[in-house]
């Protein structure tokens, strides 16, 4: 019972950290560019399929991680230059429909290239063992590795946002787009950078998640909804807020699914409702 609980808590934290990789991109893209990206969950799905593809071709998941990050950055930059740039100033409705169209196209592309079956990606052999944790039970070494990688990425992201010049530009842009030009940054390049970074993070999350769950059509959908809830709870444009909110949502969703499967989906939404009642702009918003 207790060991089971510890395992679920670890699962929850690890799930929350994956959620953070996705939602930090979502919150930054909206904060800096003012664009709603419903296709963000599909980017996660593409990352998972990319990992599946690379792993089945080369037999190495480790290769898939840099491929997902670099591929994601390039893909994101292309998407931003070709499409999202034009939608920065458009109505929310147009952004919703643009990204919904992208979801359909991405899912169809996935269906054409990889079919509609469920696939599984094997855990890398090096990490295919259990680590004894308190209470004498074993916990998957790969899950611990995912946890560590996510924490490293999160720390790197916080350092980037809080300590570097480009980070201060991103923070300034999240408050006011005009600020970028005042600070002497090329706003267009910052936008491309943020979008590419967000895409890379989402695809990295997909690649990391691939061995943890099946790779299947529409796998990004659940993540999309949860990341939206994370952004609402954490406050728009706040990376720190996204971090704590992602952990909270990850824990509640995981524990809910383990102990009360009928109510897991509702519990997270109910929590969001409580936050909205209490602080309509999120827990970590500046206003």
């Amino acid at each position, binding site marked *: 019972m207790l060991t089971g609980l510890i395992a679920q808590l670890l699962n929850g934290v690890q799930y929350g950290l994956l959620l953070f990789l996705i939602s930090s991109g979502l919150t930054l893209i*909206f904060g800096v560019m003012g664009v*709603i990206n*419903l296709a963000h969950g599909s980017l996660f799905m593409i990352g998972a399929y990319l990992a599946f593809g690379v792993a089945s071709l080369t037999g190495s998941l480790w290769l898939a991680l840099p491929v997902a990050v670099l591929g994601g950055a390039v893909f994101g930059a292309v998407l931003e230059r070709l499409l999202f740039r*034009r939608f920065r100033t458009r*109505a*929310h*409705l*147009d952004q*919703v*429909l*643009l990204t*919904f*169209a*992208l*979801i*359909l*196209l991405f*899912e*169809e592309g996935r*269906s*054409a290239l990889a079919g509609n079956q469920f696939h599984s990606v094997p855990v890398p052999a090096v990490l295919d063992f259990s680590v004894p944790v308190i209470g004498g039970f074993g916990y998957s070494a790969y899950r611990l590795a995912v946890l560590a990688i996510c924490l490293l990425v999160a720390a790197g992201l916080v350092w980037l946002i809080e300590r570097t010049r480009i980070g201060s530009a991103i923070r300034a842009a999240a408050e006011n787009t005009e600020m970028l030009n005042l600070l002497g940054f090329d706003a267009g390049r910052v936008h491309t950078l943020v979008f590419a970074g967000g895409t890379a993070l989402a695809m990295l999350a997909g690649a990391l998640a691939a061995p943890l769950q099946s790779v299947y059509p529409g796998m990004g959908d659940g993540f999309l*909804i949860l990341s*939206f*809830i994370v*952004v*609402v709870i954490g406050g*728009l444009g706040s990376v720190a807020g996204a971090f704590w909110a992602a952990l909270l949502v990850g824990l509640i969703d995981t524990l809910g699914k383990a102990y009360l*499967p*009928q*109510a*897991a*989906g*509702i519990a997270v*939404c*109910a929590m*969001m*409702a409580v936050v*909205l*009642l209490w602080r*309509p*702009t999120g827990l970590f918003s500046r206003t």
Partner: protein
Amino acid sequence: MIVASRPGQCVLGAAALGIATMPLWASAWHMQLVSAALVAALFALSLQVLVGATGLVSLAQAGFFGLGAYTVHLLGSPPVWITLPAAMLAAGVAALLIGPLALRTKGFFFLMTTLAFGQMLFFAFHDTPLGGGTDGLFIVRPSLGFTVSRAGRPAVFLLLNLGVLAIVYGGLCWLMSTMLGHALQGIRSNENRMAALGHNVQRLKLIAFVLAGALAGLAGHMSALTDAFVSPDLLGWHRSAEALLMILLGGIGALHGPILGAFALVAIQEAGSLLSDRPRLVEGVVFLAAVLFLRQGIAGWRLPWRTRP
């Protein structure tokens, strides 16, 4: 909000008459197709109360639609004069519970919270026995008060859906001419100024949200009645996005826009599945083209009956 001018209403009326005569000349399959478009139009029209009239883009609408559809099943298919108001009531009450929370937020946050609440309704049917399984289930049709033969069904449901759509459209035309309708349009245009003028903006938005929810429930009810089938997918947010697309296709600035858009979308989907084995791809390309190039929708094409707001 552009309510079609007199010539425009004549064209809409003529189209309705044409549909009404379909039982005399069209095949059952065509009638079913048009029936589906009528239900889709009803659903998109319910969302237009929020999007076009009030300026609120909601992704929770499919939740209310599905709730209306499931009401038929959960009540055990009593006669239709019970299921119809019950479906509207259930969806309306759900909107009344969700609305005050979602309306605390604006813009992007409103989108995301309505998405989450819509998905909450989805999960309520997808993850629990309430929905009768993730693949959905066939239901017993409520009695209409007279017996309908299997062969007569397409015609009867076609006329029924047409009648309901006509009544709802007429009702909304009237609503747009009332003080409430004008106040909603004022909110779409400039919410803060409306508040400064003394309009209780939150209450007005809630009225629109609940009305839209109840009408979506009605659309869901007609869908369950027509198809005798319900599934959790009816509540998924993809359906809400599709309804938004119908509005964009048809014209966001016109009350009849969603009707045109629903027919256009059903036609596109049908053509897509006839012409290619990847209809979703066709749909995605059309969406992309529509959002890139079709800014005013079909209703915005320069036609002689277009009137000023």
